[in-house]
């Protein structure tokens, strides 16, 4: 389904790419690592202290209290130093990793907006959002804890091994021999756990989607008494998620304590073998006891290993998902600085043998070849599904044609810089999406530097002043999420005012006033006409009043332009337009 790029890339390569994306990760890494080494070294204090106390302090018939006191003091000092090192390391780590993650989020977010609408729509909204939120959070666990634990654990294993070997190489071999099977088993367990968690994540996604239906579709669900069916769907999803979680937990519960048992076997083996070696005189009793303490040091990396490996894999998959966004080349790309900037003024449009098919679908536009002269008012009409919206999306370069090209003032759309294009061409889509804020904030969205006076002027010019005055807080009325606290028509009014204030050279209305009452629509049309004189205007509408007023009408039928010309001409000849018009007037004329 998703059109996002999914490269087969090795874990290491992903990791490298991930680190390169956020240079902050590497900042001061050497210092952090040095602190980490010191902090870890502190862990051998206890085994050494125990060994020293037993072998030197308690060796004689009488304990050597003076020695023990000195040893304990020295060790305490070391503990304090280690703690300070650990603190410094943590602070550095948090700072660099959080900065790096913020960078990743920002880059990912920006890139999502660079992708074409088609690519964006190939993913569930929620999934797209998680690519800059929870997927990035997944990396943070690893960067702040797991990554270092891997380094430190390896270090700890090495240090413990070296120290153990210093005490007795035979016992060291024994310990390794006992643990070796575990080191083979752990990656297997980890894969098992990772798969289980992947399932949990998928089920969680399904569950959230099911839950969101009950909220977003609340009106439809009630109107059709679909409560039971919705509840059933939710129950199934919730139960599936619970089962997946329980399964993952069971796997962990079965594998996690294993190290505990293996460690005990190692301890028992060391005690038994150590005693034999001790009898031979090749190891002191303090060394043997210290060895037992070292084993606890030895198992803690292994105990956390599955968890750490899991974090590592989570981080890799998090990176993969963010990289999938960043690696997807914007199929409708901004030519950037190489592109052309068009001077402002009336715009002419030319479609040159344009064909279009949605990905994986049949062609919906066939060889559309048409010219729209500057300063004309063009109406686009046609049956439902005939390709009008598709035409609009190509004209505003939300998509690129499969064949042919679209020219603006003779320049291929693909060569025009987005900053210039968006300033000159603005489309008002049918569902007036509003942001959660006030009316004024939404209207200003198209031109952030507009003053309150500008907004009021625009409102007045569009003849909406009375309507705004009738609202409880005027321009400061909150519109609610997606504009939910306005009526459908009111939402369209705001969306139109927003585009109007943006003041483009070509205004494209895709059924932008379909829910507005006729009187208001006529008033709006007249206001726009005043403005669009000297500008180009393209409007798509099922209400043919718009077509009657246009300089030229483009009639779409099954993806082709079958007729074009002014109203008077088209209505006189038999054809699609005459039919459309007949059914329109049969209703509107009393």
């Amino acid at each position, binding site marked *: 389904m998703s059109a996002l790029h999914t490269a087969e890339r090795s874990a290491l390569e992903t990791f490298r790419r991930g680190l390169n994306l956020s240079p902050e990760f590497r900042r001061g890494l050497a210092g952090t690592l040095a602190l980490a080494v010191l902090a870890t070294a502190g862990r051998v204090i206890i085994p050494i202290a125990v060994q020293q106390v037993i072998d030197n302090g308690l060796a004689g018939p009488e304990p050597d209290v003076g020695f023990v006191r000195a040893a304990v003091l020295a060790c305490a000092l070391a503990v304090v130093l280690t703690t300070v090192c650990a603190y410094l390391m943590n602070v550095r780590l948090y700072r660099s990793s959080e900065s790096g993650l913020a960078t990743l989020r920002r880059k990912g977010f920006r890139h999502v907006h660079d992708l074409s609408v088609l690519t964006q729509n190939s993913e569930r909204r929620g999934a797209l959002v998680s690519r800059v939120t929870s997927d990035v959070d997944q990396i943070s666990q690893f960067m702040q804890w797991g990554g270092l634990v891997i380094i430190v654990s390896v270090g700890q294993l090495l240090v413990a091994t070296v120290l153990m070997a210093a005490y007795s190489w035979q016992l060291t071999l024994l310990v390794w021999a006992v643990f070796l099977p575990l080191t083979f088993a752990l990656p297997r367990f980890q894969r098992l756990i990772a798969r289980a968690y992947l399932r949990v994540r998928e089920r969680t996604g399904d569950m959230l989607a099911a839950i969101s239906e009950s909220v977003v579709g609340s009106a439809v669900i009630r109107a059709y008494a679909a409560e039971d069916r919705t509840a059933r769907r939710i129950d199934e999803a919730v139960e599936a998620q619970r089962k997946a979680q329980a399964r993952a937990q069971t796997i962990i519960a079965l594998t996690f304590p294993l190290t505990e048992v293996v460690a005990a076997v190692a301890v028992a083996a060391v005690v038994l073998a150590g005693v034999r070696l001790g009898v031979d005189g090749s190891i002191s009793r303090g060394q043997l006891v210290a060895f037992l303490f070292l084993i606890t040091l030895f198992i803690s990396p292994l105990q956390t290993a599955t968890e750490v490996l899991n974090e590592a894999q989570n981080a890799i998959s998090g990176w993969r998902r963010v990289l999938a966004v960043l690696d997807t080349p914007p199929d409708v790309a901004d030519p950037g600085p190489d592109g052309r900037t068009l001077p402002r003024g009336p715009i002419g449009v030319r479609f040159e043998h344009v064909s279009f098919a949605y990905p994986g679908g049949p062609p919906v536009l066939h060889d559309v070849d048409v010219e729209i002269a500057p300063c004309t008012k063009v109406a686009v009409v046609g049956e439902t599904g005939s390709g009008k919206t598709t035409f609009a999306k190509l004209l505003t370069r939300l998509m690129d044609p499969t064949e042919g090209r679209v020219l603006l003032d003779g320049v291929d759309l693909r060569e025009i810089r987005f900053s210039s294009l968006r300033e000159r061409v603005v489309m008002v889509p049918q569902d007036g999406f509003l942001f959660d804020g006030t009316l004024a904030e939404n209207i200003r*969205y198209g031109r952030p530097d507009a003053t309150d006076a500008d907004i009021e002027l625009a409102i007045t010019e569009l003849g909406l002043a009375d309507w705004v005055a009738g609202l409880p807080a005027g321009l400061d009325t909150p519109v*609610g999420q997606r504009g939910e606290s306005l009526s459908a028509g009111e939402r369209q009014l705001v969306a139109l005012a927003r585009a109007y204030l943006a003041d483009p050279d070509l205004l494209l209305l895709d059924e932008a006033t379909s829910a507005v009452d006729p009187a208001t629509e006529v008033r709006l049309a007249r206001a726009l006409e005043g403005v669009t004189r000297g500008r180009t205007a393209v409007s798509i509408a099922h209400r043919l009043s718009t077509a009657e007023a246009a300089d030229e009408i483009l009639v779409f039928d099954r993806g082709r332009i079958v007729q074009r010309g002014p109203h008077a001409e088209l209505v006189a000849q038999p054809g699609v337009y005459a039919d459309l018009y007949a059914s329109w007037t049969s209703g509107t004329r009393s």
Partner: protein
Amino acid sequence: MIRSTERNRPNSRGIIGVATKVSPAVMRKGIQVIWVAIRSEPMRFTVAVLASALYGTMTVASSWALGWATENVVFPAFAEGDVATATMAAGALLIVGTALLKAIGIGGRRAFAGFVQYRMQARSRRDVTRQYLRLPLAWHHRHPTGQLLSNASSDVEAAWAPLAPLPMALGVVVMLVTAAVAIVLTDPLLALVGFLVFPAIFLLNVVYQRRLSPLATRAQQLRAEVSEIAHESFDGALVVKTLGREDAEAARFAAKANELRDANIAVGRVRGLFDPLLDAMPTLGVLAVLLVGTLRLEAGGITAGELVQVAYLFTLLAWPIRALGWVLGELPRSVVGWTRIRHVLDATGSMTYGTARLTGTGPAHLEVRDLTYGYDPEAPVLDGVSFEARPGRTVAIVGPTGSGKSTLAQLLVRLIDPQRGEVRLDGVDLRDVERGGVSAVAALVPQQTFLFDDTVRGNVTLGLPGITDERVWAALRLAQADGFVSALPQGLDTRVGERGSSLSGGQRQRLALARALARSPRLLVLDDATSSVDAQVERRILEGLREAGGAATVIVIAYRMATIALADEVVYLERGRVVDRGTHEELLARCPGYRDLVTAYEREEAERAALRAQEEKPAGEVVADAAEGVGEPEEVAGR
């Protein structure tokens, strides 16, 4: 540095910064929340606690086993050069045996603590969503979508988060008590060290969580805000693109992301300080044990083996003891999450149903009396609306944008209940009708098309039992949707995408229409249901309805004359009041507001024709003519 590997950190959205500190009030409330869980899952919870207690006891026992082995195997062997095989075997068995039991304890605790937590989550999610489905639409109007979604996801997670570490914490209490007894039995003076160190660790934990909670809550809140911005911004991607506002959106997001970064760093600072401190405490404890132990050894109070045992015990206790801190740390968030869930669960005003059955057949009889409704009860958007639709009749509701038509439509099928007045179907007040009774009789096609991410068939039937494919096709045919549906790659089984994104606007609308027609309703309410459909298709739909006709009473909200002309009666609304009722012709004749509204196109065209005719004339006359041609509709309207 070994951080809470046991703790799962839910991605909680939207915990507002209330009650974020570990205070006595929060503790009390938190215990209440936990009590709810214990009462709901007593068996599993008990198993988890027992397993945890086993783990706690065996942790202490394992140090005792090691001490025993040191005392009876290692030291004698070094002293005497040999030791009985039986003793050695016993030592090894003790060590491995306690470890096995401990492992069972760990596994059991983890599994069952998880089971309890997940069951409670699932239970809460079911309860919360059931409530969403039960509560009236008016309640939904008052609560933003995002908030409701986070209630069911992250708030639920937060509420039950303490359940994961809780059994472990209880096990730790057992462990501490056992350890205390073990040490006291070994040597009371050595125990003194323990009694200093353990409370110190506990206190440090309390301080830690008090410092951390507010910061963590803030970070959590910001995480929710970051996600909200991303959601809204991606939702409105089309607007962002068409207005070229990508950079501004990126800046808005970056500002929040940076705030989140700073909040996380602040959290990191506290964690970075307290984690190493908590690690250092038991280490210092061991050193103290060694020192005091040596003195006690000198005095003959203990043996060397006991000293090793106590020292080992300290290293073992260091980590689990922090489980107490995790529970403390999760409590404030849990309390906030639970409070928000309760807010949903305790919400009243859920629709009450009567027992009346609507048994009639054929078109329904609709009476509307004195309906008054306001999203804010102080400012009604509908005020004293009354009209009647006799069986089989078609009534058109007409009114300017924002006059309250959609609100009225929702009242007619009882999506919301009026603040005053009543809607009667076949003489029965909708509020007296049994549950599910209204929707079995009346169908609304809302103005805002909503399609589920499901197949075409699923969207039409919405799970209604007994709808055959023939009936689905018949409905699609009536809605003029059969043509494009049969052209879809998988026909009825084609998935339509999120909110129907792979269909054109008119196609979506026709599916919504088919959904209503498939149930052969006795009352059909069409709220601007053909706005995205061209006149020809609309005409065919209307003709189809009329042919199938007489079967339903139809309330139609529309502006198109074709639709209105079909109606037997027109109700003209303005600012929530009925201005006039009558046939289309009557209203045209006597209601100026109505006339202005429905004849706007005609007058517009007449004016244009006049303009065209006068184009040859001098410019001055044109202006005069135009000014006289059309009155300002708004001013004439309904005064």
